[in-house]
């Protein structure tokens, strides 16, 4: 089936089977390999992308359902190639990762949270990433990263507007 996926502001016309998940379509159809497969049954959050402002699990959505929706993947977060946005930079500052496999999903979960909540408590941060399993970090430095990103976003109005777009 022909499907038009709008990903990171660009339209990809791809041909998929009805059973193809959004995850597989992004990776294999659009060539966007930053979205990862962990469990493919909706538990680990490695496949998290943002659809119309909300963090969703791309392994639980079909590609054909996603036609016309506004999808952001990790490749759409950095302002320029080689540059990092505030959330990404904060993850680097606190070392909020090790192997990096859960990281795109974590960054996008954080982005979705900070898009609607500029002043999250630690509990709200832990809630926002509770559907994303990280086996490396024990979450401590991820929570620190999101805390730091929120602070930086608050401190910079211009950047805050960008993150809330």
């Amino acid at each position, binding site marked *: 089936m022909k499907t038009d996926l709008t990903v990171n502001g660009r339209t990809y016309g791809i041909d998929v089977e009805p059973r193809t998940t959004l995850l597989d379509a992004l990776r294999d159809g659009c060539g966007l390999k930053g979205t990862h497969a962990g469990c493919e049954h909706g538990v680990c959050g490695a496949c998290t992308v943002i659809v119309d402002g909300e963090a969703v699990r791309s392994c639980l959505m079909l590609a054909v359902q996603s036609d016309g929706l506004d999808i952001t993947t990790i490749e759409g977060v950095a302002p320029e190639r080689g540059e990092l946005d505030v959330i990404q930079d904060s993850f680097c500052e*606190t070392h909020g990762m090790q192997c990096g*496999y859960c990281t795109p999903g974590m960054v996008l979960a954080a982005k979705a949270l900070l898009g609607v909540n500029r002043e999250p408590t630690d509990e709200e941060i832990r809630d926002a990433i509770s559907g994303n399993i990280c*086996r490396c970090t024990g979450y*401590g*430095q*991820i929570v620190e990263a999101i805390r730091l990103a929120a602070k930086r976003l608050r401190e910079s109005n211009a950047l805050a507007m960008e993150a809330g777009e």
Partner: protein
Amino acid sequence: MNADTKPRFLSTDRRVREDKRFVAGSGRFVQDLDRPGMLHVALVAAQHPAAKIVKIDASEALAMEGVHYVIDGAELSAAVNPLMNGLDTPNVRRFPLAVGQNRYAGEWIAAVVADTRALAEDAAERVKVEVERLGFLTDAEKALDPESTPVHPEHGSNLLLDRTFDWGPVEDDFARSDETLKLRVTWGRNSTVPIETFGVICEWNPWDEVLDVWASIQMPKYADQIARALKLPGNAVRVHYDVDVGGSYGVKRGIKQTVLAGYLCRKLGRPVRLIEDRLENMRSGDAHGPERIFDIEVAFDRDGTVNAMKMRALDNAGAYAGRAPFQLGKPIGAIVGPYRINSVQYRAMSVTTNKAVQEAVRGFGQSPTNYAIETMMDRVAAHLGMDRLEFRQKNLIRSEEFPYLIPSGSTYDSGDYHAVIDKVLATADYAELQAERDRLRAEGLCAGIGIAACLEPSGGNSAFEPLLNEKNRTSTWMEGCRVNVDALGEVTVAIHTTSSGQGHETLAATVVGEVLQMDPDRIRVVRPDSLSSLPGNSPVGSRMAIMLGGAAANAARELIRQAVAIGAHLSRADPAACRYEDGTVVTPDGTVTWDEIVDVAHRRFHDLPPGTNPGLTANFIQQVPTGTALPKDGKVQMYPCYSFEFHLVLLAFDPVLAKPEIRRYVIGHDCGTVINPHIVKGMTLGGIAHGLGAALLEEFAYDGEGQLMTQSFLDYLMPSSHEMPEVEIVKHETPSPLTEFGQKGSGESGYLGAPAAISGAIHDAVSQWGIHLNKLPIRMSAISDAIAAAEENA
């Protein structure tokens, strides 16, 4: 490093260089790679725990469009060598696909190769396998019965290993002690379960006669094992180390998967990719961890002195031998934990059962052993009516006793256990923590404090191999590093392994920058393929800070020696009168600049000291410090360095619901000189999360039919950000006298003591009923059932 020079880059708050590509989604995981014409594999799995394979009918699958091949164990085993066993058990043969019979539910019986993975999965469902069911067993104690159904009839029994070591006057110490006590604890089968499953791509180049391999591995001597199994020369296997590995913590060994994909790519003349799905990974990726029953008898005096210990560890290895039994060997290097125990008897037993195969898991058997020792310490203290903490403090090795030789032959390098504990108690305000526990109890909750003190042997060598297998003569477990200065004067460091989140690029750049007195951000780190690499043994056994750190430092020092020789020759000075400083060579008459040295090395042979080769480059292959000899009389120096950790945890739960909630977690951690604080912190926190899972949640549980019940993330439960508390880390640094900068290992930190501490806290919380929950994981239901039963009997 001179004791009086302050490090510039070491131990400072520098970023981890690998992180940038990961936050951008630019990691290079094996799933992200594409090879032209690549085919995909799906597996046909055994339904029963043990069955004779009567017939495999693949005709329907093969008739599907896009399906290229179906292979079974008969074809594969005729073409490849059996996979390596650690022990001398030649009749426990293992191939990537079951041959003749399968030995656990889920074991791979056949593999289907197709244009896409989805197609291969569809076709795998159409492969018809006719079987005759055989007897099976899953229980390790049943497997000890000589009458039990043998998993490998050719081997004659289910016993893989039964070895008793007597270190010191055990019987005398038991006889002279005031009292003895027995206990049994069980470590449930769990694993590290990385979020990325195992994956591999193999491609055969018939013109060069080379097998290219991209894999998510963490495996010592991986290329050698693949070559041996596929009957290829060693230099015909090229493993690409520039692949990011999505977590491993020991388990990503991937031999069977790679041998299968390697055979198929040669057979079909196309690149072949095998990426496990979650079910394949959990049920049959051969990546389960130890499952161990400890029977302990301990002898002690009434004043609280522990004199001797007898420990029997019975491990359930699963269906094949592999390296699993060695996980009983490594803990020998810290068999008394951080305590002075005069003599030890250790009986290590490993059996086969019809469960999935066990692989190396973080700590290589040390965490289960630490859990057993610490539970023993709690029980003895309770028996004597002594405070658990004072009892431990009394038996801990004192700082002035280092280097300290333990009965099993290892010498602990350094430590100050009492100081670390004091710091933790001060940070946590121990008296206040106890008061908080009592307040929670007054509110009607079960509340308890857990403590655990333990060691992380680090600098991994393989001394347990010759100790448990006399035919194995390994006494080196080296690691190599190359530092090269190009013609423009820039530095590139080559490291020779894949990395699964340990930050080796940051480690190497920091160390080389430190030695060369050069900003590490200027230094490039590369990971060439295995054919372009120096010998190494991959990041296992908490070894890279010590081994790669040592190799990188020594290679950089050799580079300095070369630079000084050039500078001295240019200025006609004695090299001994010259020194290296900030990229220049300082001679008695002035300085020679870096550019000048590089120019001579790369362009001006006529200005080089006589007998010097051109270029500015150095290789160094680091031997494990202390790794000098083969075992003697059942004793050997195991790992060189010993990190220490002390856990203090307060948890509480409702007596009916019994869901433990951690209220406070403080850990004291001493891994010597820290190279990158962010990395060490992350290891410790991640390790505690693994330990929390092992203590409360995670288990590969099998039902009475020999089927794995926890084979998805819906039923194999891992700690999320809700379960994992905020942890306070208290740092202490006792440098190791054996390493370049005083560093020790930290890759297993947190995990090694968390299960013991959490179990101890639960026991403190239910102490009013005198309940013992002797098996990990301690499930909510086990706690609430035990409380209900105790209340009923009260």
